[in-house]
């Protein structure tokens, strides 16, 4: 009851005209930074942070959070339309979103992504209101060994991701893992595989790499096709509300999957140090694992959009929970918002909830409002966005290429990343030609760094003994699930062979 009363206070703050105005402004800015590849929600929030000393703190936090929500929604647009990840967590959206757009269903794909974004935010907001403190305390129980097993779990859902040659999937994964090794060793602090270059000390960030692999690589393939065969210039993206209706129906049909992904995403999101990106991959992987016809994934399955996007947005929201309740930043964006608290004269920590209820509940209430407002803005814009696909290829491509390079630079402000995008564009092209799957590489690049960190932290704790993963109840459970998931494709393979063998024997 008290929670509801607090929430009402929060709505009282968030619904003020000035707060609503700033929220909408924040959402629009967030959508913009979300669309620009490389310039992410974290950068957007960080950029505008110092300006917020000019408005009251309750409004300031709603404004900054709105930028973040906007980026969560907006990141999908370029992923779906051009196979360029606008945000790290929208890489998974490329796998099925882009094939859909190529088939002329860009509007449906976008609308589905927006709808699932909303579901994600909404589910997370309800969890936020109902169980904020107990969940934050639960998240504290997840130490490095548990986190490592969760990373394994995420990897295991991707075993069957590369449809086709299993050895090629393996090569692609290994290549990704090798790339994560470049840079400073996290335990010894020594340079690894940097060949004496200071620029290489930064390591390969997966945003410039994926922009190159998917974005530039795709453009090169496209260009080649157009050179060799006469292609109909326009993908027939229909304008109108038909797409949105179709997306609504699809979301309704797969509501269970979407909702479940959102719940899963939320739990991954509240674990400090993970954030929305692993959640989106996990959502995608699990949706595919449990699909009756997984072969449709990668070819434009709408579930491949709904699940990762709901998980990502829910996780992105969940990442704020440990920050608000305990003062622990769950993601880079939460860390930047935490810096904001100091600026507004607040002191983060467990007392914030009690001492500043108006501030905290205003933020929580704005979750609901921002989700709804952002959905309306996005759906209204969908036909227009889909119409971009009608722009002649020769005019659109140069703009995309420029955006790709600018995006890879602004991510970390180093030229090294621009070269990365260029070179990985070439690598992506070659890999596609040789039918190596790109998705496992991207996943390995994101999860590999985290997995290594958690593994090595765990091993320091246990003096090098691997038993630590089995003896702890939580990590043991996750490990068991992960192992089962790893073995599942093997089991399927054996069964398929047996069946084939049986048929032969009968014949």
């Amino acid at each position: 009851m008290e929670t509801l009363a607090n929430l009402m206070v929060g709505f009282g703050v968030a619904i003020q005209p000035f707060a609503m105005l700033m929220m909408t402004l924040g959402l629009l800015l967030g959508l913009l930074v979300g669309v620009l590849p490389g310039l992410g929600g974290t950068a957007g929030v960080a950029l505008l942070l110092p300006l917020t000393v000019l408005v009251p703190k309750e409004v300031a936090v709603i404004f900054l959070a709105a930028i973040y929500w906007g980026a969560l929604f907006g990141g999908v647009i370029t992923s779906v339309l051009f196979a360029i990840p606008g945000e790290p967590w929208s890489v998974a959206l490329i796998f099925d979103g882009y094939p859909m757009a190529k088939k002329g269903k860009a509007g449906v794909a976008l609308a589905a992504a927006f709808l699932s974004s909303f579901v994600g935010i909404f589910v997370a907001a309800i969890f936020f209101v109902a169980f904020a403190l107990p969940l934050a305390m639960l998240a504290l129980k997840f130490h490095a060994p548990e986190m490592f097993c969760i990373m394994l779990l995420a990897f295991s859902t991707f075993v069957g991701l590369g449809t086709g040659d299993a050895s090629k999937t393996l090569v692609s994964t290994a290549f990704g893992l090798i790339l994560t090794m470049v840079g400073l060793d996290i335990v010894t602090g020594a340079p690894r595989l940097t060949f004496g270059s200071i620029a290489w000390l930064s390591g390969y960030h997966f945003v410039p790499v994926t922009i190159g692999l998917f974005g530039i690589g795709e453009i090169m393939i496209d260009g080649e096709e157009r050179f060799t065969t006469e292609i109909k210039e326009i993908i027939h993206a229909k304008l109108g509300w038909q797409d949105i209706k179709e997306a609504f129906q699809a979301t309704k049909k797969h509501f269970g999957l979407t909702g479940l992904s959102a719940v899963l995403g939320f739990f991954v999101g509240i674990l400090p140090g993970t954030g929305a990106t692993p959640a989106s991959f996990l959502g995608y992987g699990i949706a595919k694992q449990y699909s009756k016809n997984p072969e449709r994934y990668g070819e434009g399955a709408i579930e491949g959009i709904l699940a990762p996007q709901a998980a990502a947005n829910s996780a992105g929201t969940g990442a704020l929970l440990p920050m608000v309740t305990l003062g622990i930043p769950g993601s880079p964006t939460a860390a930047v918002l935490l810096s904001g608290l100091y600026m507004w004269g607040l002191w983060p920590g467990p007392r914030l909830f009690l001492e500043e209820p108006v501030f905290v509940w205003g933020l929580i209430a704005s979750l609901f409002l921002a989700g709804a407002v952002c959905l309306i803005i996005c759906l209204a814009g969908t036909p227009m966005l889909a119409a971009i696909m009608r722009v002649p290829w020769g005019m659109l491509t140069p703009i995309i290429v420029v955006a790709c390079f600018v995006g890879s630079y602004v991510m970390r402000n180093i030229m090294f990343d621009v070269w990365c995008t260029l070179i990985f564009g070439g690598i992506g092209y070659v890999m596609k030609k040789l039918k190596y799957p790109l998705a496992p590489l991207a996943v390995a690049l994101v999860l590999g760094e985290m997995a290594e960190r958690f593994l090595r932290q765990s091993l320091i704790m246990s003096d090098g003994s691997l038993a630590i993963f089995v003896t702890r109840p939580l990590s043991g459970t996750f490990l068991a699930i992960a192992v089962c998931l790893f073995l599942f494709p093997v089991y399927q393979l054996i069964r398929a062979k047996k069946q084939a063998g049986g048929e032969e024997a009968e014949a």
Partner: protein
Amino acid sequence: MKKIRQRSSFLLITVLVCASVFLFGEVAEAAWPERPIEFIIMAGTGGGADRYARFLISINTKDKLIDEAILPVNKAGGAGAVAMQYVLSQKGNNHMMMITLNSFLTTPLFQNLPFNYKSFTPLYLVALDNFPLWVHKDAKWKTAMEFIEDAKTRSILVGGTGSKQEDEIVWRTIEAKMGTKPFKYVPYKGGGDVAKALVGKEVEATVNQVSEAGPFYPEFTRPLCVFQEKRLTAEGYENVPTGNEVGIPIEYTMMRGIFGPPGMSDEAVKGFIDLFDKLVQTQMWKDFASKSGLMTDGRTGAEFNKFLDTFNQAHIETMKAAGWLK
């Protein structure tokens, strides 16, 4: 005739306008700063250095201490090496400054880089930040000495930010000076992760700054001592003894310093010093500094240089003792 007069007056006005634009334009141009200032942060968004930089910028946004904007630019990577290399490449740029951690000294030493602190223009030593010894509130140790005695019997699990950087230096110094068993040091990505590790009992002790670990005291954690000359001034920390008081003679601080690229003009150096003199006088900064238990410093020029020489030498000795340098 009339036409000629008209023409000549037109000419006169034109000349006057041009001259005044030229003259006053010149005056305006001479003042520093002429354009927005780039503020390089040698760490990623959301970390401790990032927080300080954005906090300082927000004061300028609010109080308009200089007319131009200050733009934060994060250059993480290579434990600061990437940022340092970038600032060095901007020789003579009067509109750039960088906020540093101690890795400003340790990274060139440990990574054997072709430059060091002497390659930069030291501008302002804003403050020296603290290293308290934190344990969970449920921990059995009541005093710092109890902790040390326990550490002599077993390898205690401790955490900190990064490896071969500030936090690990503190732990290795304790090891060397107090003769404890080697600490099992777990490196984390940032101060927030370290705080979470202690609150969640993943590690047994940390040396996070008050500005990062303070929010969890007293609900989850408590400080046993602080490794600096004088006690912390922050409210609620008056009773936390210094290391010296309890028999752990260790003093170590985190340098929150401001540096510029080489070859800055004297005017720009003076401008930066003026700016920071004003920044640290604002109420917003004073509140933050007192809550975080910062030792506001304010050294510039030769004194700052002297401090750097001593501080660098101390790092070399510690790192040699730990076997990190040959």
